[in-house]
C-alpha cells in the first residue's frame, strides 16, 4: 500500500507552471526527500500534498484516499514549517497541544501525549516557556513536537533545518531520521541540500523546473544518475561530465565521479593525459582540478598534496565507474564501456 501518491500533479500560476506533471509513489513508513535547487517546485509540491495550495491538474492520494479536494485538516497529515510557525503568544506546551485542543481531545489524553512527546524530544524543562525564549534548535523541536503529537501517519517537512547552524543541523538530521524510524511515520521532507537527502532518505525524488528528474534510492541516484542534471546535483564535488569524442564517439557525454579517478605519474602507461591546474587540500584528501584538452576534470585523491600546478599526469578509472549521457537530451545511455585504461589519448 502506498502512503502517498501523486499522479500528474500540476500547479500553474498564469503561464508559469511551478509544478509540471509530477508523479511519484511512496510506500508507508518511508522517508521521502523532495530534492532540488531553489525554484524547482519542491516546496510547492509539498504544499499541494498538504492542501495549502490547490492543484491545477492531477490527483493527490494519501493512504488509499483521494485527498485532492479535501482541506488540509481532513488529510491526516502534520507539517513542520521552515519558519516553524510557532504561535508566539502561547507557551511551548500550549503550542504542542494546540491541534489536540482544536480537535477536542479529552484533557487526560492531551496530558499523556504531551508528556510522551516532551520526553521524546527532551522538552520537559521548557514546557512553560514562550517561543521567543527558546534557541533556534529548541524552537525546531517544539515545531517537531507539534507535528508528532497529532500521531498522523504522514508528516511533511519544509526545509526544517535550514535555519540552524551546521553542527545542530547534523544532530537534528540524525534525530529526525531516528524518530521517523522509531515511530514508523511516512515522512516527506523538502530540502535543497543533497547531503541531507543522501543521509536521511529511503527514497529521493529529484525535481527540476517542476518535473521529476529522477526518483529512486540514494544509492541509485549516486551510482546510476538518470540525467546529466542528476549526475551533477549529487555528490561533492559533483560528477565530471565531459565531452571527449576520442573516448565516447560524437554525441555522447562521459561522466566519471571525482572519487573514482586514479592519478598516475606521467611516465606510466594507460589512462588519459592531463595537467594539474590547482590542488585544494582538505586534510583526509585533496581535490585536484585537472585539464584534459579543453575539458576540466576534478579528481578526489588522497596524499597528493605535493602536486603543483602545471604537473603533467595520467588519469584512469574503472569501466564500471563510467557513465554515458546523450549530449542532446542529457539522458543516461547504457553501453558496455571499455575501461579508459585501454585508451591512450
Amino acid at each position: 500500500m502506498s502512503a502517498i501518491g501523486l499522479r500528474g500533479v500540476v500547479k500553474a500560476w498564469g503561464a508559469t507552471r511551478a509544478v509540471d506533471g509530477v508523479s511519484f509513489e511512496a510506500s508507508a513508513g518511508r522517508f521521502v526527500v523532495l530534492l532540488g535547487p531553489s525554484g524547482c517546485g519542491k516546496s510547492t509540491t509539498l504544499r499541494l500534498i498538504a492542501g495549502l495550495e490547490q492543484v491545477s491538474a492531477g490527483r493527490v492520494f494519501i493512504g488509499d484516499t483521494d485527498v485532492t479536494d479535501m482541506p488540509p485538516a481532513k488529510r491526516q497529515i502534520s507539517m513542520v514549517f521552515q519558519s516553524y510557525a510557532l504561535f508566539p503568544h502561547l507557551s511551548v506546551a500550549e503550542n504542542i497541544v494546540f491541534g489536540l485542543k482544536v480537535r477536542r481531545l479529552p484533557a487526560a489524553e492531551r496530558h499523556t501525549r504531551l508528556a510522551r512527546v516532551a520526553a521524546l524530544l527532551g522538552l520537559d524543562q521548557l514546557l512553560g516557556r514562550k517561543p521567543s525564549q527558546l534557541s533556534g534548535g529548541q524552537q525546531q523541536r517544539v515545531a517537531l513536537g507539534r507535528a508528532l503529537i497529532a500521531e498522523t501517519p504522514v508528516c511533511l517537512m519544509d526545509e526544517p533545518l535550514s535555519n540552524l547552524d551546521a553542527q545542530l543541523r547534523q544532530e537534528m538530521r540524525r534525530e529526525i531520521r531516528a524518530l521517523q524510524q522509531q515511530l514508523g511515520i511516512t515522512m516527506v521532507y523538502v530540502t535543497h541540500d543533497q547531503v541531507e537527502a543522501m543521509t536521511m532518505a529511503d527514497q529521493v525524488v529529484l525535481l527540476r523546473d517542476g518535473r521529476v528528474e529522477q526518483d529512486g534510492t540514494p544509492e541509485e541516484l549516486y551510482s546510476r544518475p538518470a540525467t546529466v542534471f542528476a549526475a551533477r546535483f549529487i555528490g561533492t564535488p559533483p560528477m565530471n561530465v565531459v565531452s571527449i569524442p576520442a573516448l565516447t564517439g560524437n554525441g555522447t557525454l562521459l561522466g566519471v565521479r571525482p572519487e573514482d579517478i586514479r592519478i598516475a605519474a606521467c611516465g606510466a602507461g594507460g589512462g588519459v593525459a592531463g595537467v594539474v591546474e590547482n590542488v585544494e587540500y582538505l586534510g583526509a584528501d585533496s581535490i585536484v582540478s585537472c585539464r584534459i584538452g579543453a575539458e576540466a576534470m576534478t579528481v578526489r585523491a588522497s596524499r597528493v598534496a605535493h602536486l603543483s600546478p602545471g604537473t603533467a599526469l595520467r588519469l584512469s578509472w574503472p569501466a564500471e565507474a563510467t557513465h554515458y549521457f546523450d549530449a542532446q537530451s542529457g539522458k543516461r545511455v547504457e553501453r558496455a564501456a571499455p575501461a579508459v585504461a585501454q585508451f591512450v589519448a
Partner: protein
Amino acid sequence: MNRFSVQIHGWLLVLPAAVLLAAFTHYPAVATLLHSFYSTPKANRPAVWVGLENYRAMTQDPVFWQVLGNNLWFALGTIPASIALAMLMATWVNGKLHGRAFLRLAYFTPTILPMIAVANIWLFFYTPTYGLLEQITVDLLGLPSHNWLGTPSTVLACLIVVTVWKEAGFFMIFYLAALQAIPPALAEAAAIEGASRWTYFRRVVFPLLMPTTLFVLVNAVINSFRLVDHIIVMTRGGPDNASSLLLYYIYDVAFKFWDSSYASALTIVLLAILASAAIMQFAFLEKRTHYQ
C-alpha cells in the same frame, strides 16, 4: 570643549522645546490646578483662596452629574463598537479581495474629513422631515416622524453613531498594520491542525492583536472625553443638556458663564478620570498582553 560648555550646549539645544512645553503645557496645567482652589476673579473682587469649595459645589451641581453620566454612556456606546468595527473592517480588507485598496481608502475617509464638515453632513441626515434618515423611515417605511436630535432620549445615540463612524476607520489602520505583521504561516499551521477560521481568529489573531487593542483602547477612551466639535455643530449640548459631555460643559462654564475657577475644577476632574482610566487599562491589560 570642557565638560561645562558641553552642558551649556546641551541645555541650549533643549531650551526651545522646553520653553514651549513649559509655557503651553506644564504652566497651564499647574495654573489650572491652582485656580481650582480660588474663587473666580471679578472686576472689583480679586480671586481669594476657597480651598475645596469649587469641588464641593460640583458635587451639588445636577448638570455636572448629568453631563458625567452622559459621558459614561457616550464612552460605553462608542468604545466597544468602534473597536469591534475597526477589527472587523481590518480583517476584511486584509484578505485577498478585489479592490481592497479602494475599500481601505473608503474606510479611512471619515478620519481625513474635518469633524466640522462631517457634523454638518450628519446634521442633514438627522434633520426632521427632509433629512436622509426621515426620508427612509417616514417616506419609505411609513414610520411616524421623529426629531432625532431634538429629543433627549435619542440625541446621545445619534452622536454615538457619528463618533463610531468617525473613529472606526482610524483604528482600522492600526489593526491592519498589526494583521500584516502576523506571518501567514501561522494561519497555515492552524489550518493543518484543524482550526476553523473563527478558532484561528479567537486563539491566535485576537491575542496577537492585544498590544494594538490596548493602544487603541487608550486612544478611544481619551477621545470619548475629548471630542466636542460635533456637539458644537449639531446640538450645542441640548436639548436640556441631554447631549452635553464633560469637555463641552467645561467650555460652557469657562467661556459662556465665565466661571473660570469652577471650569478649572471640572478640568482637574476630567484629567483625573482620564489618568485613572489609562492607569487601569495598563495595569489590567498589560499582564494579559503578549508583545513580540
